[in-house]
């Protein structure tokens, strides 16, 4: 069993990198040392009326200095509270959680959509293969895209066409005539659904990172399940826990 740690992490720095999107570096003793790309952490609010931890994907891991980078969007009062954390502040964090991506040496697509982009950055750093990184945004307000350039060829799609290919990540893949042997993806459900179909049509291995409302974050409460094709060994029904068996699944093993 992968080890999990509860820590009071120190905020190293935080900045807003796009409207309502924040980049937060925290110093942790154990979590950074054990984290893998595609895993997430639970961040706990200081305000006592907010009881549930917020699951946030890991964007970068700095093992040397024991640092974790979290890039998140303000989605409510909890994430708004996090956005006010300044250097030196403390925040309770539990992790690393979930399974993470299985790294392979195949020509790869790394595909991120919106706030699904951050976890692809650490994956891009750690994957040792030919990488084509396809990022989907709403409009020209891009984030992280320049940081990906060190790790592979970056292609951008925007919904309004103000930057890169007009449309979604698959439109960008087709517009540039790109091909790969494995897909790693994180983003909104419609994007993941389209990629699942694309992968099946092209006979490509496809790994997707799923999102669901969570409570405990460690597999006990059964809040964050997704439908699975086969009966799951733990649940004994066709449900898998996103926080435990996931968040990364083989596209064909989940139905959404």
């Amino acid at each position, binding site marked *: 069993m992968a080890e999990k740690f509860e820590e009071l992490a120190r905020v190293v720095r935080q900045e807003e990198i796009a409207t309502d999107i924040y980049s937060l570096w925290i110093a942790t003793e154990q979590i950074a040392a054990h984290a893998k790309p595609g895993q997430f952490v639970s961040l706990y609010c200081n305000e006592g009326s907010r*009881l*549930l931890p917020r699951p946030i994907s890991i964007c970068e891991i700095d093992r040397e200095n024991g640092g974790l980078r979290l890039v998140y969007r303000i989605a409510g009062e909890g994430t708004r509270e996090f956005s006010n954390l300044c250097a030196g502040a403390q925040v309770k964090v539990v992790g690393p959680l979930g399974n993470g991506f299985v790294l392979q040496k195949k020509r790869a697509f790394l595909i991120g959509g919106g706030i699904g982009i951050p976890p692809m950055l650490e994956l891009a750093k750690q994957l040792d293969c030919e990488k084509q990184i396809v990022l989907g945004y709403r409009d020209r307000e891009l984030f992280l895209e320049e940081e990906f350039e060190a790790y592979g060829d970056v292609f951008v799609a925007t919904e309004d066409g103000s930057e890169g290919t007009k449309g979604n990540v698959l439109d960008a893949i087709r517009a540039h005539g790109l091909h790969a042997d494995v897909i790693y993806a994180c983003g909104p459900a419609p994007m993941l659904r389209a990629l699942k179909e694309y992968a099946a049509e092209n006979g490509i291995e496809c790994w997707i990172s799923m999102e*669901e409302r969570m409570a405990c974050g460690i597999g006990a409460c059964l*809040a964050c399940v997704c439908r699975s094709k086969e009966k799951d060994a*733990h649940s*004994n029904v066709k449900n898998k826990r996103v926080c435990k068996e996931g968040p990364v699944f083989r596209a064909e093993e989940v139905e959404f």
Partner: protein
Amino acid sequence: MDMSVDLCGVKLKNPVMTASGTFGSGEEYSEFVDLNRLGAVVTKGVANVPWEGNPTPRVAEVYGGMLNAIGLQNPGIDLFIERDIPFLKKFDTKIIVNVCGHTTEEYVEVVEHLSDQPVDLLEINISCPNVKEGGIAFGQNPQMVEEITREIRRHAKQPVIMKLSPNVTDITEMARAAEAGGADALSMINTITGMKIDIHRRCFALANRTGGMSGPAVHPVAVRMVYQSAQAVSIPIIGMGGIMTAEDAIEMILAGATAVSVGTANFTNPRVTEEIIDGIKSYMERYRVESLKELVGAVHER
């Protein structure tokens, strides 16, 4: 100093247990909590066959609480007996299995399967607000509470705790009915039915539309119901509902609870059960309480 309590002839090393559905069968939390320290682990509800539960989203946060509508997803009694009970047997804690069903027959089937198992107590969930049949349907009518309690009592080898719903006009009516049916103990409160609406998308926050509310915001309701029921019946009561701290647990005990269950607080702090045990111990030291039993129902007028 003696923190132990007697629950229907079962001696708990301390009064702190886990609330059903928030702690699985303990495996996940055993990475954070030493299960040996707990008075008992109360498992997630288990039925005669596997249940898939409700569609997602199944949870939503509200001010000072949360709503859940998991829908009693569970692996069924066979896998539970094969996997979950042996896991819990490795620890020096008491095992309380929470039982759910759609019909009396389904509850009885689970209870019979458990008759030869190393389980200390049974907690019967007749109060889940999130399943259409069974659950709360049994818990809102005193006659049905009495009948199902009697039927389960007739088949059960272990002491039977009936878990009551707060979604009733008079909790003491249900408490008396369960006692009349032969319940060995009561636990209360299950969650309070609630609803949350996402005003930006103008949709229900939960796929099930309604969900059960838990968390510190419901604590005073739970304390009141435990107090009223303790006045009405002579069987022990396990108090739960929004216990976040040792102070909350002590309040519940003073209201009349013999033991307490900690639920939603596990999500806020995975180590909270141990912290509550330590906090109760400090309270007993501070006020020179020799035995925890002295505190049960010890509330009085100002």
